[in-house]
């Protein structure tokens, strides 16, 4: 079945709080879902629930028509989740981080790594320990990681945090290229992200 992510009537409780109240949506190949809402509306929780890090009390997430819990490793091998803190080790260089972090998902050639770093304009500082980098530079390294995984479904939590104007533009370009190649993206955003309206659905969390 073609790539499609569907969420049905998701209900999630965090302690006493009813965070997600019957959230549902469908995103298919070439489409992007932008999740918006005030702080604490559950954007991160929704993304983490879709990724499978949180178990919803009610409702299910379907990937290619099948519940994601059935063949979790297949779903995860096609998905990449990037949270608002980039999962990078401060003592390793950016390139090393990707070599190990993405290396456990797929094998890639050094050229692919260089190409991904070049696309996110991270080549210049990829060989410096991550702890010496600025937050925006780390984000660019992490975004190169997203490209390198070649995942079909991108789950991005606040992808534009810490990025300068050219970085915001970069996110837009990357997502659009990803959609054009038949990928799917779900992004929780604060700042408006001007994507092609035909490929974009918006979900406002109350």
């Amino acid at each position, binding site marked *: 079945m073609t790539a499609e992510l569907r969420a049905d009537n998701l209900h999630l409780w965090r302690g006493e709080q009813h965070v997600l109240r019957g959230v549902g949506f469908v995103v298919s190949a070439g489409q992007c879902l932008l999740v918006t809402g005030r702080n604490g509306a559950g954007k991160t929780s929704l993304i983490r629930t879709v990724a499978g890090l949180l178990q919803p009390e009610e409702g299910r997430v379907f990937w290619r028509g099948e519940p994601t819990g059935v063949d979790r490793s297949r779903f995860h091998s096609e998905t*990449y989740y990037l*949270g608002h803190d980039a999962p990078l080790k401060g*003592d390793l260089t950016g390139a090393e981080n990707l070599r190990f972090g993405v290396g*456990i998902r*797929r094998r890639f050639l050094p050229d692919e790594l260089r190409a991904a770093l070049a696309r996110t304009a991270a080549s210049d500082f990829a060989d410096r320990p991550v702890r010496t980098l600025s937050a925006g530079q780390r984000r660019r390294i992490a975004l190169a990681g997203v490209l390198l995984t070649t995942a079909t479904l991108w789950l991005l939590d606040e992808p534009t945090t810490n990025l300068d104007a050219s970085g915001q533009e970069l996110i837009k370009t990357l997502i659009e290229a990803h959609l054009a190649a038949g990928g799917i993206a779900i992004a929780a955003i604060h700042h408006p992200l001007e994507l092609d309206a035909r490929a974009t659905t918006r979900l406002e969390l109350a």
Partner: protein
Amino acid sequence: MTGGQSVSPWHVARLTVERDLRLAFRRPAQLVQPILFFLIVTTLFPLALSPELSRLRDVAPGVLWVAALLSSLLALEFLFRDDAQDGTLEQFALSGQSLTWLLFAKTFSHWLLTGLPLAVVAPISAGALGVDFGSMPGVVASLAIGSFALSLIGAIGAGLTLGVQRGGVLLSLLTLPLAVPILIFGARATELAIKSEPYGAPLYLLAAFAVLGLTLAPLAAAAAVRIGLE
């Protein structure tokens, strides 16, 4: 579009171990801490107790093993902590690879960095406690196998205490009851080795614990980590 070559479990484990070793050697202080602790404790005993070698030899197994146990408990706190903080564990859980296998690889490298060095430096401490050179193979073997079992069992506790702030004490309390059999059989094997008697039986039991830990602990740790990530 997902693709590229798939990754074999061995490759995944190799990458994980390589990454952990590289990280450890970039931050040697954390690496040296448990070894130094072990050496200090074991070499203080001959100074505090009577310097009679036969007496020291009697207490040597207990001293070596209690120090090894405490040192590995100290080190356990660092097993998953950094990876939990920087999101690496999340990426493990979402990598499409077996979390059990990844955590086993992590536990193995943890043992390479904190358990195995204890066995390697043990002859120094044992020598200070009056143990003959001929008994060293038994001392080293029992500590090597025992510390491996301790690392595996400790991985469960380390997984369970992920969400706890300053979970060090809780981690020790959780792990100690499970570690006691290893302490008993390990100290017994060391004692027999020092007396130049056959120490095979307790050593095999120790190995049995390590195998039991090998089969069950990574599974339990993976389940614990999944809960901890929620």
